[in-house]
């Protein structure tokens, strides 16, 4: 599938380029000072896939996501090596347009963190920052994303109350809506359900399945049964020699059904990790 979009490197007003899509990391390593968080991870993320990243605590899953949208640049002493290509364009070489990158690659954090402002402003504030000022457009996107995450009926009468009055599950869906409003192509989710009750968690899960048609999703989760339900692709990270590494990755059927590695087999049976 080919898609037109803004380039990371070209000036904003350059005509959009047409390129095949996906994120591809090659021998990606990330260091906090001298200590490696993970090493040599090569992974392809296909368009419209849900890639689930699993693995024990501290194996570098969150760090991996932060490298993918270069949030790692903001951590002192954090160095990334190797290469990341977003639709054939290098993310790590040369200067990139951050606004475009973050617009294209959205991120959802483990802990719901809506901004301390009204529900409406939580969605419109980032949009305005991206230069969308037309009232009609803002309103249209607001309604669209709130419907998409199934929050519209719950909040349509209280759009101007503080987002902090929402429940945890509602807050997390608002954060997803906030990211969707920018019309990203890729959505990185770091344990999006771990702070939620089973019902809210189920709602977010349904949402992920629904979003798959339009977005490329990367979801970190510790919940094996959830991973089985949502994954089209899966990757298992592990800690070896005090450093994260990739054990196995592939289509979900293969990783869960007939894993190549013993470690994976043990993990997906719930015997390890």
């Amino acid at each position, binding site marked *: 599938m080919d898609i037109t979009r803004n380039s990371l490197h070209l000036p904003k007003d350059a005509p959009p380029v047409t390129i095949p899509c996906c994120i591809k990391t090659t021998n990606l390593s990330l260091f906090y000072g001298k200590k490696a968080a993970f090493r040599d991870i090569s992974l392809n993320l296909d368009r419209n896939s849900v890639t689930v990243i699993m693995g024990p605590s501290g194996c570098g899953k969150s760090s991996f996501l932060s490298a993918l*949208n270069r*949030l790692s640049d*903001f951590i*002192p002493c954090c160095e990334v090596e190797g290469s990341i290509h977003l639709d054939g364009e290098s993310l790590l070489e040369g200067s990139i347009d*951050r*606004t*475009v*990158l*973050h*617009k294209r690659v*959205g*991120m959802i*954090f483990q802990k719901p*963190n809506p*901004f*301390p*402002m009204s529900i409406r402003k939580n969605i419109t*504030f*980032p949009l*305005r*920052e*991206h230069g969308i000022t037309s009232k009609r457009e803002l309103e249209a996107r607001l309604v669209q994303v709130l419907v998409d995450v199934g929050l519209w009926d719950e909040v349509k009468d209280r759009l101007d109350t503080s987002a902090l009055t929402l429940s945890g599950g509602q807050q997390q869906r608002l*954060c997803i809506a*906030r*990211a969707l409003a*920018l019309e990203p192509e890729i959505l990185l989710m770091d344990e999006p359900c771990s702070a939620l009750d089973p019902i809210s968690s189920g709602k977010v899960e349904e949402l992920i399945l629904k979003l798959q048609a339009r977005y490329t999703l990367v979801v970190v989760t510790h919940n094996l049964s959830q991973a089985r339900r949502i994954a089209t692709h899966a990757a298992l990270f592990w800690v070896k020699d005090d450093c994260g590494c990739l054990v196995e990755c592939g289509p979900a059927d293969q990783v869960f059904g007939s894993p190549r590695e013993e470690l994976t087999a043990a993990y997906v049976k719930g015997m390890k990790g």
Partner: protein
Amino acid sequence: MSLWQKDKAFLFVLSVCASLAGVISIFIFFFLAKESVPAMAGIGLSQFVMDETWFASENQYNVLPLLWGSVLVSVGAVAFATPLGILSGLFCHFYAPSAIAGFYRSMVHLLAGIPSVIFGFWGLVSLVPLVARIHPPGPSLLAGVIVLGIMILPTIMVILDDAIANLSRLYLNSTVALGVSKWGALKGLILPNLRKQVGVSILLGLARSIGETMAILMVCGNVVRFPTSVFNPIRTLTANIALEMPFAMNVHRSALFFTGLIMMVLVAILMSTAQTRTSRQA
């Protein structure tokens, strides 16, 4: 002794200490009130606002110019220090390299430890001549505002620095992940949510500057008058007490206690407002 009994004993010690602090301030309040009674009875409250000026040897006891002096210099100092505090807090968190931010912070903390007489001394030998060059005489409301402003800057900075640190810890990652620029996050998220802490720091800054004596006494000129320009010398309530207490007797002495009482009430109001504001947001 069982654990429970130990707990009770500890609770008892704590309550005694806590009530001691409370009792002392109430005690001081009543002491001031008692000492002011002769003035209130002998001079009468109306004279405190109706007299021509404050001039004890001619039995003139108008506190308004003094009160006005205190209020002006404090409000000026806060108006000087608050924007500085906000800007330097934002600078430290968003623009300065961490080494410079750290250095700046330790300098500000050092500033907090400098005794006020040193500030007064610096004001007297460096600032006052500078002001005199712009507009004589030199010792003036302006000099007081600047010296006091620098003195209360650490208080304001520490409060705001803390608040900004909190906000950016909570929200900065998300704004970056949403492609919001630094400036956008500052303007749209950090600054609007700083309003409460700015209010609190203004109140605490006011309370601190109303009570300041030594530095003010050294740089403000101490002429009792309603100033018409920032270059006029002024006298504050605190400076007045420090200047006249050594030789004041009888009604005059009691009148000084009365001005002390006024100040204590003012500061109490400011402090308690600040307190309720902080606790309400917590």
